């Protein structure tokens, strides 16, 4: 072993330990999904043979399929619309010039500071007046304009060469065309980063869907997990399986878009 690699040994050990510590909760979740409730309470760290049993219990207790479908519909709907709205806004803020746009951006950023609990009741009243309680639209609408994502797109659009816009205009492309045919393809990695953030937030969203979706048929995955812990007796094996199933889609999405995500956060155009 060379001296150099010896010197880096402590940091390697430290990093390995840190990596293990951060992966451990994930491991425990996966292992627990295959164990009985009593084993989970006893912190058993080896996989067990209860996976099928837990799945059967989960299916018997809750409408898993419906919850998965509802969560997917809400999250995909929110992601598509939020990407569209926020990227148009971010692009507009950067490409078009108006005296008040910085003031407007300020207001948007201020909106980021207001906790959701403060706006929940007026929001509920609005949607109840529209007759939209227990609808998918009611879950999606408040989530499609995300100040953080608008900011992300604005920052990304800053590095988008203005000359391209000018050239496209001279070539006769309309504004919408520039946005759809030039901006979107160039900013692919920013879109990927924003998609991960929005999808994750929408998928994990709990409070608002719980309040507005009164009808049980609209139950989402986080609501299903909450139901599993509401009784006097909790089956922790079943609970861990439900948590695992709920985490899978966001994990898969992140793994698929991982590289683009990192690029999108650090800057889209090289």
């Amino acid at each position, binding site marked *: 072993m060379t001296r150099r690699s010896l010197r880096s040994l402590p940091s390697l050990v430290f990093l390995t330990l840190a990596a293990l510590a951060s992966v451990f909760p994930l491991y425990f979740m996966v292992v627990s999904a295959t164990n009985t409730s009593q084993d989970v309470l006893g912190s058993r760290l080896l996989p067990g043979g209860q996976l099928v049993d837990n799945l059967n219990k989960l299916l018997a207790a809750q409408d898993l399929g419906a919850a998965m479908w509802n969560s997917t519909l809400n999250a995909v709907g929110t992601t598509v619309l939020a990407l569209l709205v926020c990227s148009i806004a971010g692009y507009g803020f950067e490409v078009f010039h108006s005296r008040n746009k910085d003031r407007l951006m300020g207001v948007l950023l201020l909106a980021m500071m207001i906790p959701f609990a403060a706006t929940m009741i007026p929001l509920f009243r609005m949607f109840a007046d529209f007759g939209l*309680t227990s609808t998918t639209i009611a879950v999606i609408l408040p989530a499609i304009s995300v100040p953080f994502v608008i900011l992300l797109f604005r920052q990304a659009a800053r590095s988008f060469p203005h000359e391209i816009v000018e050239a496209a205009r001279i070539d006769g492309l309309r504004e919408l065309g520039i946005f759809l045919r030039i901006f979107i393809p160039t900013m692919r990695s920013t879109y990927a980063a924003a998609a991960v953030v929005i999808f994750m937030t929408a998928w994990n969203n709990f409070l608002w869907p719980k309040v507005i979706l009164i009808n049980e048929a609209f139950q989402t995955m986080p609501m299903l997990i909450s139901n599993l812990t509401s009784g006097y007796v909790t089956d922790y094996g079943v609970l861990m399986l439900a948590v695992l199933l709920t985490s899978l889609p966001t994990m898969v999405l992140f793994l698929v878009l991982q590289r683009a995500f990192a690029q999108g956060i650090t800057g889209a155009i090289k």
Partner: protein
Amino acid sequence: MRKKMTLASVAGVATITLALAACGGGDGSTGGDGGGGGEGDGSLTVWAWDPAFNVYAMNEAATIYQQDNPDVTVEVIETPWEDIQTKLTTLAQTGELEELPDIFLMQNNAFQKNLINYPELFTDITDSGIDFAEFPESVVAFSTTEGANYGVPFDNGAAVTALRTDVLAEAGYTIEDFTDITWDEFIANGEDILAQTGKPLLSGVAGESDLITMILQSTGGSLFDADGNPTISDNDALLQAIDVYTRLVESGLFVEVNSWDEYIGTFVNSNVAGTINGIWILGSIQTAEDQTGLWNITNLPSLEGVGEATNYSANGGSSWVVSSNADAELAEDFLGATFAGSTEFYDTILPSSGAIANWIPASESEVYAEPHPFFADQPVFQLAVEFGAQVPSVNTGAYYYEGRDAVSAAITNILNGADPADALAEAQATVEFAMQ
């Protein structure tokens, strides 16, 4: 240029509208019909939270009611208690009461708070024909204000001491040595068992006041007087209850853990030899199948020389509420014929769910007297109803949760060395501040 921008934004809005319309497809028909209460069409919508327990009980009640009323349908929407509370608060504050179901279940501890803050959620069922004298007075008190009844008590929250007989036997004790005793005797026995077997008797979540409020209620004391004013400072029963708790913790008899799940783990994994809680804790105890036949239950130790000094108390429990949006006549008749009037119903739900009645006539049934194999053939259900009927009645008031939180904070300070009287005076001030 400006024209182009307008065009672009119009196109954008049009896209979104189209997309939204697509997303909402098929939802329109159900829009606004979530609560579903009060339609007067022979259907009842119910919010309850435990599929193995109260949701199951409600569905069974529906089956029994349908024998005489075949046209009535009951739809139970599974909603965790915290979410029911969030929804009730939202609906009351926005005035959207038509979203309420016909019937919902409410934790007894939270009943007075909701009743006082949001009376518009409730229907007065005093004259519904339900005989409230058939329920323990201490339980009916939760859902009563100014002589009017707003709830039908459901599950029993009677407090029990559950102990591992094998551990007791190892140290030469039986369950009788823990029946009708005082806290001093409990601590003496417990220390002996701890010394001989190495097993503490109790556990609980650190910084929670469940055990202290159970001890307090066993003396007939509360954190509030009859007018709802806090009586946390200058409360002898509370001081003594805290003294018992401190002694339990300091002698190692009571293991403090950090979460509810860890608490369940302590007895399921045999780290402690017992627990004191509402009778509903038996469900969690029974998840440890390898401990079948090794448990017994008995009443609580009493706090000698204070107040009524009984061996009975309660923790938890819940009651059904007829909402202000209900088909009130149908809902009252339904609850009166099942939860407040059918031994057949309670006999049906008991064996499979362990849902123990507050309705006193139910305990006379043979099903309640049956020996329970997990608890070494004790008739635990009958005992629970007997215990429940002897619990002293106390006033919880609108700020019960705030009171409990303040006392919990005080306990943590006292265990860290603060003077009990000073810590409680601070708790009193905290609650008074919250009430302003």
